[in-house]
């Protein structure tokens, strides 16, 4: 599967990764090679095979709906690049 540089840019946009023009060309070759190698999976007959997302197939456990922590605002904010009061700060989203 060839991945042209427009496709690379589109994927990079979905992944929120800024990539330069030059890098998108390098990545186009790189990803193309890897995907070509991966495509040997097409040789395998998987008709009627149920996909396996996790070896742990039993249903997830339930617990009581109780508050188990809280009142830890300072811990939650401790590693944030920018905060104001009890909030994370991000660039303006709405004009």
């Amino acid at each position, binding site marked *: 599967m060839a991945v042209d540089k427009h496709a690379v840019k589109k994927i990079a946009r*979905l*992944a929120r990764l800024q990539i330069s023009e030059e890098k998108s060309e390098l990545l186009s070759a*790189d990803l193309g090679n890897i*995907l070509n190698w991966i495509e040997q999976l097409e040789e395998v007959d998987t008709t009627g095979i149920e*996909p396996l997302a996790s070896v742990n197939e039993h249903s997830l*456990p339930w617990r009581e709906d109780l508050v188990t922590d809280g009142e830890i605002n300072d811990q939650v904010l401790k590693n944030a690049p920018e905060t104001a009061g009890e909030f994370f700060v991000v660039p303006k989203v709405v004009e």
Partner: protein
Amino acid sequence: MSDLLKMTATQAVFSLSQKEISSIELTNAYIDAMETTSALNNYVTPTIEIAKQMAENADKAYAAGSAGPLAGLPIGVKDLFCTKDTQTTACSGILKGFTPTYESTVTSQIWQSGGVMLGKLNCDEFAMGSSNETSIFGPAVNPWSAKDGAALSAGGSSGGSASSVAAGSALMSVGTDTGGSIRQPAAFCGVVGLKPTYGRCSRWGIVAFASSLDQAGPFTRTVGDSALIFSAMAGHDSKDSTSASVSVPNFSDVVNSSVEGMRIGIPGEYHMDGMDDEITRIWKQGRSWLEQAGATIVDISLPHTKYALPCYYIIAPAEASSNLARYDGVRYGNRVDAETLDEMYEATRAAGFGEEVQRRILIGTYALSAGYYDAYYLKAQQVRRLIKQDFDSAFNNVDAILTPTTPTAAFELGAKISDPITMYLNDIFTVPANLAGIPGISVPAGLSKQGLPLGLQLLAAPFREDRLFSVASAIETQAQFSLAPARAAGELS
């Protein structure tokens, strides 16, 4: 001093409990060794003061008769485990300076058992790599040298964890294994590396790479030590919904139990074209050791083996692209400022993630994107089930499977980093166990002509780590592997 570094964990526990040595003496010997082996670049954040404090506490516990099973033992931790108030970076630029306010379940169980933390160990960025060369701190170096003297990779992703135990700058260490990241570096450095059953150890507080594949496990110099620390690491944790409610036996009791009458499978598909003669030789050697120990050798087939790697390179990047979405410069990690929120995300992630991590995020995003999801992601999940079924039927017939751990001995730093697929092929024998969720162990079995360690891998059915320990100790007994890397801390070599 020399005697201190040469002790196994099991011997050290005995000497500590007999008051022949103190934990502070033992810990200081390791702190000195961290200094003399610093060129190996194993520790990214040493925690000397914490180590001394924990060693003092251990000595008090021995005096009071309340010592836990790991009391006083100096242990290194892969920098992928969150450690409270100690920087945790996953060896990525995006997390430099991140200081967790909580402790991972596995490490907190180790400290509760009395373990002494020496520091945080080098690894590939977000555990993505097989040579430790994608680390923001530069590669961990293997303490073993080839006859030509070239610097060798310690393997990856848990390179620092393997190298430190081999070099004598940690008595034991913990790492994680998503596709071979414990077993491959253990084989490269000549130590024992265990990847437990998926769900055996809690993943809570471990920086996530691929959540359906990640498992924590120990590095040790002997199989007995592996059983000792693993018994303390394992167990159910309500904070990890995939952690198994299965009781944890005392694995130390099964080490050295007889393999007489056990059935050991040899999978024909692991004979790869172009595989090193030395690897074939050590594999045959392992087979005859187990025969001599009274096991029955059975030829088996795992027909989908060759598809495990391409299957893994869809599933692991897909899960990684989702897990790593959290690094957005808002809640933690480093930020690159920009005008708009989207520009900030994109600039932050481009600056913070290294090349291999970005490559895997892109592959994963592609495989999960509209129009390609069925062809790549669903297909890979179907192949994953076939791989698991191969193992399920094999374990109806055998108690354990014997394979080489890696297709080659340790390679030179720089030899494979420019070609992703060549690097990925290094994990060809280890990846299937992660996809199937089964436990595996690598045990050092001998040396190559170049004088480098070679490992044998054993695999067993889910939650049968006990079988791994008994078969691995049979190999250990016969191999008589002696740990003597050229670049170890003085007295160890």
